[in-house]
């Protein structure tokens, strides 16, 4: 068994990604307003409670039936192909918006979620977390959710609103989002 190679370290995304990484349609996994579409949105906050206007979020998810998408085309969306991946930068109010569908469970009885990565100026490496669906019956048996104290669990579950789901991210502070590392 060979020794695993050393990982290349991360570095901050910095302040100047805005003309490079965002692209037209990046946050629209499905066309906004199309049948079955929801808005997934929220704000990103720093430890002083101020919104972060230079963060970049990426989601990666199953389709509504729980399949893992393996279609290319995220960078030039055709409006018909669900690639399961999207990218949204925050606006000057720290707000982000995705247009997508609710993820389905990849296995019977599993709690569906959006996998999320967070990047920002001032944040020296990526952060991973999950966005679970509010009041989904499978949440009660999810190994991660049940392992967490109530206040931390609450940071990982979106809330329903008129157009879909709301999920705020707190990099620091009383309501600091629970971030993940994978075994």
């Amino acid at each position, binding site marked *: 068994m060979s020794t695993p190679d050393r990982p290349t*370290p*991360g570095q901050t995304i910095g302040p*100047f990604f805005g003309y490079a990484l965002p692209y037209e349609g990046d946050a629209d996994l499905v066309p906004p307003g199309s049948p079955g579409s929801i808005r997934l949105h929220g704000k990103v906050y720093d430890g002083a409670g101020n919104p972060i206007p230079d963060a970049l979020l990426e989601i990666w998810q199953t389709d509504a039936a729980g399949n893992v998408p393996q279609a*290319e085309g995220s960078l030039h969306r055709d409006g018909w192909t669900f690639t399961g991946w999207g990218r949204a930068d925050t606006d000057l109010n720290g707000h982000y918006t995705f247009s997508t569908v609710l993820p389905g469970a990849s296995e019977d009885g599993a709690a569906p979620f959006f996998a999320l990565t967070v990047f920002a100026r001032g944040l020296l490496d990526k952060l991973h977390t999950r966005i679970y669906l509010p009041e989904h019956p499978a949440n009660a048996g999810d190994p991660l959710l049940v392992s967490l104290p109530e206040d931390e669990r609450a940071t990982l579950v979106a809330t329903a609103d008129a157009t879909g789901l709301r999920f705020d991210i707190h990099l620091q502070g009383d309501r600091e989002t629970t971030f993940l590392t994978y075994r």
Partner: protein
Amino acid sequence: MTAPTKKPPVETQADLSAEIEKLEADSAGQNVRQPLLDYPPYRSSILRHPTKDPRHADPETIELWAPCFGNSDVDPLEADLTIAGSNEPIGERITVSGRVTDGEGRPVRNQLVEIWQANSAGRYIHKREQHPAPLDPNFTGVGRCITDSEGRYRFQTIKPGPYPWGNHINAWRPAHIHFSLFGRAFTQRLITQMYFPSDPLFALDPIYQSITDQKARDALVARYDHDLSTPEYSMGYHWDIVLTGPSRTWTEPEEGDL
């Protein structure tokens, strides 16, 4: 909640360097391979790092797969950053190439690589950019490519200049190219920066120094590769990238890749 007010920096490089040295001494022998998220010499990190340790999770199915990108996403011409304008960009023409592999040395094939960088004068095309260095009408500093069957990427660009930033008085970033990478699993997602050999600004830069292990820092520095240089045309830099994190079981490709 009060609106953030932008205060001009008052600390000098000497103040910052003293902080950097102290944190370096504190972490001696710890072999931390990733940047410290809580690294006060990088002032913007102070309110933007989680204070709790991340929770351990067993990756679920979706996290063990990665999004797919391909020829419908990226035009091969996007790997050449020197052809965006009607004339040649100003600066030292370079080729940057290397391999993307996972922690077991297996190639990350057919995967998206995105880069962005300052021009040769150290200026980005960005509306919040303040540095009064010239823009280059023939250089946007943005490129993309898809790795080949061996995990290789290759960009044609110009060498970026160092640039000043507001972290402290007389703060300068070492020349770098920002890289965004996807692995074989979403757990392996990486955004980082590639540096150039022997930059005198390394010792002074809080972002580079936030990685306290010298071997790990070295992994962000490309090496000059004369074999990548093109006669009478451009200089070559080689930089390999290792993406770690759990992924699904490796399956060999159908036709021989021995």
